[in-house]
């Protein structure tokens, strides 16, 4: 077995074990926090598609996340659709919005796209207030609480956890399928060199729009899950800082990694809380320092760092076993 696939297997094993053990170990409130982290992780996976594989920095992911959340909330509170049933619609609607955002992205790159999308993120809460008629304005919108079906004997918190993990699983599957398919190859090609990719027959317009649609669909799905978990949303939850935090989560976790997306989501939810637990007034100071230090130690994100570390350890153990074998052979 090669080092790569072995460390991937180890990584996946650890990850699955953590996913199963978490709800057994954590109290109800912390579990809800984990669910929120998972909702962010779904949005981060989408952003990774765009940023890690497509090479485009989008600072409007938080706004798209908000679109998904509002679609779920409106469908549920105005039309009485079951919260889980709204999720596919949130994803689709957000993908359409994402396509509109993505249109200028066809001509913009790097810094330029980052600035325009940052503007959209800053305008989003204002827009929500302006459209108070359907968004409920400052007072926000409620979403029905989720109860486990009678045939599943679990607490509501655990059921929420199962639902959000399932959504995350679907998202991870979609991302993986997309990346290993033609779209993924075209995406990576256009990131490395747009002109050459185009000369080789990659349809840039189509590829970039696909990336935006895919990324936004996941943002919408994450937003929908977020709305269900919190049971109430208002413009306060979708300020511009959310978009920045999603970008931070994505980069801290590692822009090309699915597991990294989960770590990024957890980072977004827990690190600021822990930082202010250590010292209330110094919380943000510690958070800022943590951000800088993490990037200095692990410039390719936490997963890149762990992978490097894991493969070094695996190689070392492999070397040891090999040398043990050799000495034995010499002895006999």
């Amino acid at each position, binding site marked *: 077995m090669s080092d790569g696939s072995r460390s991937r297997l180890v990584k996946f094993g650890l990850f699955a074990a953590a996913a199963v053990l978490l709800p057994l170990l954590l109290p109800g409130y912390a579990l809800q926090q984990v669910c929120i982290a998972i909702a962010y992780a779904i949005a981060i996976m989408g952003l990774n598609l765009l*940023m890690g594989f497509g090479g485009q*920095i989008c600072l409007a992911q938080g706004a798209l996340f908000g679109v998904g959340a509002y679609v779920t909330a409106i469908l549920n509170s105005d039309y009485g659709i079951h919260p889980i049933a709204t999720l596919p619609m949130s994803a689709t609607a957000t993908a359409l919005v994402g396509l509109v955002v993505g249109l*200028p992205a066809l*001509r*913009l*790159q*790097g*810094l*330029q796209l*980052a*600035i*325009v999308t*940052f*503007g*959209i993120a*800053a*305008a989003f809460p*204002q*827009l929500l*207030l*302006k459209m108070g008629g359907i968004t409920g304005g400052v007072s926000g919108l409620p979403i029905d609480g989720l109860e486990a079906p009678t045939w599943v004997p679990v607490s509501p918190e655990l059921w929420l956890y199962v639902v959000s993990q399932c959504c995350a699983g679907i998202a991870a599957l979609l991302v993986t399928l997309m990346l290993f398919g033609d779209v993924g190859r075209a995406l990576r090609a256009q990131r490395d060199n747009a002109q050459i990719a185009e000369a080789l027959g990659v349809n840039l317009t189509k590829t970039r729009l696909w990336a935006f649609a895919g990324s936004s669909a996941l943002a919408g799905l994450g937003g929908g899950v977020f709305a269900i978990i919190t049971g109430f949303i208002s413009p306060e939850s979708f300020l*511009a800082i959310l978009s*920045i935090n999603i*970008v*931070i989560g994505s*980069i*801290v976790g590692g*822009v090309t990694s699915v597991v990294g997306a989960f770590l990024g989501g957890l980072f977004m939810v827990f690190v600021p809380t822990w930082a202010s637990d250590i010292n209330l*007034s*110094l*919380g*943000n*100071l510690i*958070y*800022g*320092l943590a*951000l*800088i230090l993490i*990037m*200095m130690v692990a*410039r*390719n994100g936490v997963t890149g760092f762990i992978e490097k570390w894991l493969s070094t350890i695996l190689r070392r153990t492999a070397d040891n076993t090999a040398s043990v074998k050799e000495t034995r052979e010499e002895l006999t």
Partner: protein
Amino acid sequence: MSLFFQLVVSGLTTGAIYAALALALVLIFRATNVVNFGQGEMATFSAYCTWQLMEWGAPLWVALLVSLAGSFAVGVITFRAVIRPLMSAPVEAIVVVTLGIFVLFQAAGMWLWGAEQRSFPSLFPDGGFNVGDVRILNSTVGTLVILVMIAVLMGLIFSFTRLGLSMRAAAFDHARSVLVGVNVERMLMLGWGFAAVIGAFAAILIAPRLFLNPTMMTPILFYGLAAATLGGWDSPLGAIAGGLIVGVAESLGASYLSFIGADMRIAVPIALTLLILLVKPVGLFGSYKVTKL
């Protein structure tokens, strides 16, 4: 018609704020090829230092000079401590680090001075004058004059001095600059120092109007970015023109376009940025392509 002119003047007044931040962003981009998202917060921190020195009894001009020198040191130290170790890292890492700088300086201000607003003395005499029916404040004129002077000075240094040439070269290409004997690290360090000084100047000029508080610059970060994009990322005077255009367009748009109104005024700079990027991506006064973040 006098409403129109009054709106233009009020736009110029806000535009001067955007221009100030844009100027600092452009300088650091030109000198180091990095967009420092923490620039505004660093500037706010400098303004607080000035205020603190005055609280302790220092005269305004002494406080100003001391804190400008201090800002230079803070810029240099920030570069040495967090940017230099990451110079070979992917762009994303640098983006996160500048966001970290943003959080760090805001938090430091909050911790040292608390969240309440404080009044900050103006460098210019109170009052203003009338042109026809339109009221113009002394501080608006004064702020703009100082900003234009800084921009012209910066432009002259970059275009006509050997130091400026070396700074531009260092930002353009590290390896090539090393080979002709440019001390790249020192140039980048100076770039961060100067940008911090200009940022501090900007914050001190606009603090009287915004009232000093740790998040004073946060809401206008996007306006600064939009102004720099509009004017062109390599042109100091462009940054000022961009800031003024954004300010005036915002003021007019919010009053005359009913679907925008006061609460959606941020749509104006978004539209302007998009328009300029689609029509002339290097900006009104820019001369080369900007693709690096």
